[in-house]
């Protein structure tokens, strides 16, 4: 194949890419990836020339190997899903994510329920507003020692920390969202013959939804951090626990691997789950929620 043919293929490819992603987005993708490439390049150079000790900055290859080394005794994929004892890495991932899901499954409905009840009653919500502010400002990390006293070191403590963060954020955001629902919408449904329960289902909850989803994003942001901290201090499993123990043993490749996994999991769940959800309510219903 001659250079001319290569040139043509290249042009075709670039036109196809431009068509697929659009000129601006392509430019942004390329520009945006430059710092990552430079960083990885420098990282490799460091490994090659040994400027910094491998303990301080582990080689990328060692991180890659750590994945297999941590999973080395794992019998197989099914065993990993089932949480087999020897599946070190996957168990920690599953344990962290599992706690988030469990805490969300309990905390979101509870927070919404109490938030709606508090928000409907203006006087009550006035008094509960400072409770929400206080709980949200102490929430997360500062509860860890007390949680250890109450539940001991282990999954109960970490679950409690996550639940506590989620509940108060959702409660507060639901309450504020419900309070901001225009009265005339509620009156409209009442004059159509709607009961109290109907106004909750058809007006208050959908009206507060943008605010609830904002609360969910905040919950994940704060909760995931708090969970990692809780696993470090008061846990016996999970990614936070893993990187903390590895740091004590100076296994820096495991620490780096864990840190990268923690942020990738967060990024994916935020960008691919919650941001689209947020956009959906805004675009479909033309609602914009301005946080107070």
């Amino acid at each position, binding site marked *: 194949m001659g250079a001319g043919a290569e040139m043509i293929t290249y042009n075709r490819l670039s036109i196809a890419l431009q068509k697929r992603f659009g000129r601006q987005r392509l*430019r*942004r993708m390329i*520009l*945006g*990836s*430059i*710092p*990552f490439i430079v*960083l990885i390049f420098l990282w490799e150079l460091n490994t090659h020339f040994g400027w910094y000790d491998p*303990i*301080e900055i582990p080689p990328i290859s060692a991180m890659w190997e750590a994945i297999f080394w941590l999973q080395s005794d794992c019998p197989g994929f099914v065993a990993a899903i089932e949480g087999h004892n020897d599946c070190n890495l996957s168990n920690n991932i599953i344990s962290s994510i599992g706690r988030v899901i469990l805490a969300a499954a309990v905390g979101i409905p509870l927070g919404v329920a109490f938030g709606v009840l508090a928000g409907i009653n203006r006087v009550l919500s*006035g*008094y509960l*507003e*400072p*409770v929400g*502010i*206080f709980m949200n*400002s*102490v929430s*997360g*990390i*500062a*509860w*860890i*020692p*007390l949680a*250890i*006293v*109450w539940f001991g070191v282990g999954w109960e403590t970490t679950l409690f920390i996550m639940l506590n963060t989620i509940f108060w954020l959702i409660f507060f955001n639901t309450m504020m969202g419900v309070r901001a629902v225009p009265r005339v919408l509620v009156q409209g449904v009442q004059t159509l013959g709607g009961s109290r329960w109907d106004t909750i289902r058809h007006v208050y909850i959908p009206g507060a939804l943008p605010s609830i989803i904002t609360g969910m994003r905040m919950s994940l942001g*704060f909760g*995931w*951090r708090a969970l*990692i*901290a809780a696993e*470090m*201090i008061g846990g016996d499993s999970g990614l*936070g626990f893993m*990187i*903390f123990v*590895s*740091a004590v043993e*100076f296994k*820096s490749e495991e*620490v*780096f691997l*864990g*840190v*990268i996994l*923690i*942020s990738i999991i*967060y*990024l994916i769940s*935020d960008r691919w789950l919650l941001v689209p959800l947020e956009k959906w309510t805004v675009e479909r219903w033309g609602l914009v929620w301005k946080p107070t």
Partner: protein
Amino acid sequence: MTSNNNVVSFRHKLKKFTTDGAGRLIIFLIGSIILWAFISLFIIERPDRYLPSPMAVILSSLDMLYKGSLISFYSDTLGRLVFGGIVGILIGIPIGLALGLNRTIADMFYPLMNFFQSVSGIAIFPVVVIWFGNSDTTVMIVILYTSFFPIAFNVLSGVRSVPVRYIQAARTLGASRLQIIRDVLLPGAMPSIAVGTRLSVGFAWRAVIAGEMLAGRPGLGNMIFSGQELDNTAQILLGMVMIGVTWIVLDHYLLRPLEADTIERWGLVQR
């Protein structure tokens, strides 16, 4: 007639107090202390371990005040917050500005910053510990790391939100690039800077507590952590109350007014 007026104005005042923000806060505080005391004294077994009464917490605070540790812990923590917050903001503003001013720089570094923002300060803690050990430096790095991103991103979006018309208008008046930054972009971005400052300080506050706890450096974070190790639950509760109250006071009386004032004064762009 006068007495009647007095009664009316007293009722008026009472009503105003109970519906006012500060009044509600006080009522809430008194209410929750009573509830807490009730649970501690009548419901829970072994309250000294699981939920010491408010009285026990006050005693513990007096004890720590007498020994001098409370004030030193508190000032350590506040010092870290102030230093970390200010330095984080001072680094964040120029970087946010640079990103806001130049599209190429922004397109280049935005994804990288986004990635590192999602690597939370707490998660990088073990990495920093490997580099600097359990030291004050470690705690400070975690605080700076956490407080940097909110302000940088807000300055960026603040600069971007200044209408192009304003820049063009300044250009036609013969303003130089530097003058445009000083007279148009910075004032235009002021509301976002204020919002970002509040967020940054909030993030920094959490990072201070977590960093002290994890690195075992003296401060409120370590005070609640050692309270757990020493089986001194009153000390934990004292620390938690101090953490919460400090933040509310800081937010309510400093950051929120600052934000509101800035938005009001400079907020042409935002409204």
